[in-house]
């Protein structure tokens, strides 16, 4: 079962797909193993710096700055999608 964002609209789905790709590319895992509500910190191959690296790539890609609390405490893909969605709305032209 692949990642399913809980908020369902086209933009959110696109953000979720992009973040899923960044996570899977960075951690070299299959999207099929990544569920929206899964604890990212418990994924195989995840260590704390890997996750920081993922956050840096997400920030670069979306040109946003995530809150420290999210960078260091995030647990699920869903949380990330919601945060990125909010931030990219705020910074949209």
């Amino acid at each position, binding site marked *: 079962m692949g990642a399913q964002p809980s908020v369902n609209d086209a933009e959110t789905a696109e953000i979720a797909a992009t973040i899923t790709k960044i996570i899977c590319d960075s951690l070299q895992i299959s999207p099929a193993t990544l569920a929206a509500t899964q604890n990212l910190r418990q994924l195989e191959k995840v260590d704390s*710096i*890997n996750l920081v690296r993922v956050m840096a790539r997400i920030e670069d890609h979306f040109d946003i700055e995530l809150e420290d609390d999210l960078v260091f405490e995030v647990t699920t893909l869903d949380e990330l999608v919601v945060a990125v969605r909010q931030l990219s709305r705020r910074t949209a032209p």
Partner: protein
Amino acid sequence: MSSGAGERGGAAPVAPDASNHHYDLPPRIFELFLDESLKYSVGLFERPDDTLEAAQLRKLDFIARELRAGPGTRVLDVGCGWGSLVGFLARRGCRVTGITPSPRQAEHIERRSREALEPRGAAGGAGDITVLRGAFEDQVLPEGSFDAISFVGSIVHLPDKAAALARAHRLLAHHGRLYLSETCFRSEKRYAQFSTSAEFGFIRDEIFGWGDCVPVSRYVAHLETAGFSLAGMVDLTANYRRTIEEWRRRAERNRTAIDEICPGYTDRLLRYFDICNASWGFTTKQYALIAVRER
């Protein structure tokens, strides 16, 4: 006080022997990824096309200026590595003492210093170089006998940072200057969270032997307690990211040669570089602090 590998914790390992095993590897390994002066610390980049060599030379000049080091200045470089700063300052006419616990580094500097100081040519160098082997704590040095002291990425390896800076204050003459640059966790919170992580454990234990990247606020407090006046602080984090990108590129290019000297070492270096460069700005910072003994 955090629960991380604490600088005042009763179980802190004794640094000198432990931190030797990386620095005491054959210098040839370091020639295969550092710049030609073997400066194993952050460079100072100004232009997009700066080479690592140019950035390291600019950085040496920056340190010299912060230390107000010129002909005759008595400088102590604590943890002098392969002597890039020692050689640079001696060529400017300083009387430089370097301290290293690594016999290989000491031999390297002594060999190079003969080449660097003779002939005493265009750079006008009339300085001299003394290399002291062993731990800073164990050296017998007269109080007030230096005009400038540097800790360039070395105090991280000293278990008692407060005592080291208190001693530096006593060793400086009136108006003597101190330059300290170091990798620091970004805050007490990040220090507590990451200093015990597997990734930093790898760098600390498997690359260096021992080190403790305390937040910069602790150095500021130690300097104040020692009696220093703070004269400046510079954020060098972005420069270190670029410096490590350069080291990484060179290590990859020279993989075969590095692995011939120490099998499998390139991959360990690359892992160490990747952890550092993923961490800068998020969990770690690189700061330089400049302090003066005014009283």
